[in-house]
C-alpha cells in the first residue's frame, strides 16, 4: 500500500478529481497548502511595504493499493502537466497499515 501526496495548482483540482475517478481511485483527501517552488511568487503591495508571499497550492492525498499506484500517478500527471513551472510534485510514501473505522477492516481491504 502506498500513500500518495500530490501538490498541485489550485485550479487543477477539478481535473485531478475527475482523472482519479476515471481510473477508479475514488477516495481522496484534499487540503490547502502554500508552497515555495521553482514558480516565482507575486510581490504584493501594501501601502509602502512589499512582500513576496508563498503561492497557494492544493495538496491531494490518496492511499492506494500497490497495483493502483501507477495509474493513480499517471492520472495526476496527465491532468496537471503543462510544462510550466508550478505544475507540482508527487510524493509517494510506504503505507504500513490502513484501517477503515466504520467496519474495522484492515490492510488493502480498507483502502478502497
Amino acid at each position: 500500500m502506498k500513500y500518495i501526496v500530490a501538490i498541485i495548482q489550485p485550479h487543477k483540482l477539478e481535473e485531478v478529481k475527475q482523472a482519479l475517478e476515471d481510473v477508479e481511485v475514488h477516495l481522496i483527501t484534499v487540503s490547502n497548502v502554500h508552497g515555495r517552488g521553482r514558480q516565482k511568487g507575486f510581490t504584493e503591495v501594501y501601502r509602502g511595504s512589499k512582500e513576496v508571499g508563498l503561492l497557494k497550492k492544493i495538496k491531494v492525498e490518496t492511499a492506494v493499493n500497490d497495483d493502483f499506484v501507477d495509474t493513480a500517478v499517471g492520472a495526476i500527471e496527465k491532468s496537471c502537466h503543462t510544462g510550466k513551472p508550478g505544475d507540482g510534485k508527487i510524493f509517494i510514501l510506504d503505507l504500513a497499515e490502513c484501517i477503515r473505522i466504520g467496519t474495522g477492516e484492515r490492510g488493502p481491504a480498507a483502502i478502497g
Partner: protein
Amino acid sequence: MNAGDTTWIMVCAVLVFIMTPGVALFYGGLARRKNVLSILMQCFVIMCLITLQWVLVGYSLAFGPDTGYGIIGGLGWAGLRGVGMEAHEYAETIPHFVFMIFQLQFAIITAAIMVGAFAERMKFSAFLVFILLWSTFVYDPIAHWVWGDGGWLGEMGALDFAGGIVVHVSSGVSALLVAIMIGRRVGLDMTAFAPHSLPFTVLGGALLWFGWFGFNAGSALAADGIAANAFVTTMISTAAAGITWMFIEWKHHGVPTVLGIVTGAIAGLVAVTPACGLVTPMASIPVGAIASTLCYFAINMLKPRLGYDDSLDVFGLHGMAGIWGTIAVGLFAVEALAGTNGLFYGGAKLLLIQLVYMSVCIAYALAATWIIFKIVDTVIGIRVSKEDEIVGLDLTQHREGAYTTLE
C-alpha cells in the same frame, strides 16, 4: 427652501451613497476568493471617477439646459458653473447643490451595478476607460431624455419614478452585452463557482435594501406623502419578491436558500424602483412577486440555456426586473399619484409610452455599449490573459491578497 426637505434629500444622498459599497460587498461575496478585491476596487474607483466626471461634465450633460431636441444637456453647468446653494426648479425647496449630489449617487450606483456581469476577467485599465465612456455616453444622455429639463422622453410622458430604465435597464442590458462580448470565464464549464463568502453577500444585500429607501423615497425630492408612499411600496415589493423567490426555489430545488431570498429581494427593489411613487402599496405586492418570478426564470432557465456568462446575474436581476417594473408602471399607475392611470385603472396610453421608452433606451444602450466595447477592446484589450485569470485578478491586477491565509 425647507430644512426638512433639504435634510431628507441630503440623508437620501447618503443612503444611496452606501449602496455602492453595498453592491461591492454583494458582488464581492459572490466572487471567488481570488477576485474579491478586484470587485471592491472596481466599485470603489467608480465612486471616485464618476464623481469627478459628474461635477466636471456629467451633471451638465444630464441635467444642464437642453441644447435643443431634448437629446442632451449642454456644457453650461460644466464644473458646476451656476450650480449653487440656491434652489433650482428641479427641486424647489432644497439647494441646487443637494439635488446635484443626490443625482450623482445614481450615476455612481448605475455604473457599479454593471461590474457583476463581467466580473473576474476584465483588465483594470480597460475597465476604467470603459466605465468612464459608458457613464458619459450612455447614462448621461438617457438620464437627460427622461429626467432632464426638456428631455424628449420625459416630455412624451414616460414615467420613471426613481430610475427603472435610467438605472437598472440601461445597466442591465449593457452589462449583458459586455458579458457576451467578453466571453465566459475559464473553468466555468468544469464546475460551478461557489460564492466565497455568503455573509458578505447578505450584508451587501442588506445595505442595498437600506440605501434603496433613499433611492426611491428620495426621488420624491421632498419629505411628503409621495415620499411616504414610495417608502412603503419599496418595503412591500421587496418583501413580496423575497418570499416569492423563496417559495419558487423551495419548490424547484428542494430548499430555500439565503442567496435566493436576497436575490429575490433585490429583484423586488429593482422592479418597484420606477413605480414606487406611482402605484399603491397593495399594487406593489404583484410588482414584487412577478419580478421575482421573471428573474428566477431568467437566471435559472434562460442563462443556462443561452450559455452567456453574466457572472453575477446583472441582466437577470436588474435588466429583467427593471423591464418588468417599467411595464408595471403602465399597468398599475394611479392618477392620484402618477397624474395618469395605468392599464388596470383604465388608461392604455401610458403603457404604450412606457414600451416606447423602454425600447428606445434598450436599443440605444446596446448600440452605444457595443461601440464603446469595441473601441476599448481594440485600443487597450479588454480581457486579462488566461494565466492572469487563473491566478486571479487580485494578485495580477492589484498585487494584493484579500485575506492572509498563513498565520
